């Protein structure tokens, strides 16, 4: 009983590392999504987020500018969470390659 109402602050304290990681990602997205709606980043906001927060995982040498340009198309385009997540996925694959021998 009452489980429906229990989703609040005291639950947050029991969050697992994975859930805390998810929270961190959302916070970063919202922190940079300042202009207009908070559900999307402008391409310059995305650029700032990546260069300031993801510089080790997504160095600018890996064609970042082109990727962002491809995402947008024209200047006023906005990047929604799903697209942002796909980009992070690419960075995540670099992590995969950096840690090939996990547990060995």
């Amino acid at each position: 009983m009452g489980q429906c109402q229990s989703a609040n602050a005291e639950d947050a304290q029991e969050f697992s590392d994975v859930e805390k990681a998810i929270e961190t990602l959302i916070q970063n997205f919202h922190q940079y999504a300042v202009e207009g709606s908070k559900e999307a980043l402008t391409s310059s906001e995305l650029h700032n987020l990546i260069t300031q927060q993801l510089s080790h995982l997504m160095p600018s040498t890996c064609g970042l500018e082109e990727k962002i340009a491809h995402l947008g198309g024209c200047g006023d385009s906005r990047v929604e969470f799903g697209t942002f997540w796909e980009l992070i996925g690419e960075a995540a694959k670099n992590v995969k390659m950096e840690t090939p021998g996990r547990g060995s």
Partner: protein
Amino acid sequence: MADCYTDLEKAVVVLVENFYKYVSKHSLVKNKISKSSFRKMLKNELNHMLTILWSRGGPHSHFPCQISGLCVRSHSLADPRFCRQDTGNRKAADKLIQNLDANHDGRISFDEYWTMIGGIMAPIANLIRQQEQQCNS
């Protein structure tokens, strides 16, 4: 290596490492998570967030009907039985696995895993936004 990482990068690493923590140890299926391990992962690592989402995902919620690949029917989620955590989460988890496993090989790949995390994150982000708006209005 990871010492100089930002919080955001550390978060990405946590999510990647979590996948490998549950990856099948059997040599035939490299770099995939079995259904039983995946169920364990949902329970051990994502229990709070999924409970929040699944208990709130009624017909008026943005979650989860609009998330592609995570298409759990919202009228099922409005069923009060789903708010009883154990049985509800178990059923919802089975449905989630079924939907994720598009190629029916009974295993979850890294890409499928990543899609799932994104699918959880988007509605959680919406919830946070809604709460902020309610607080501000």
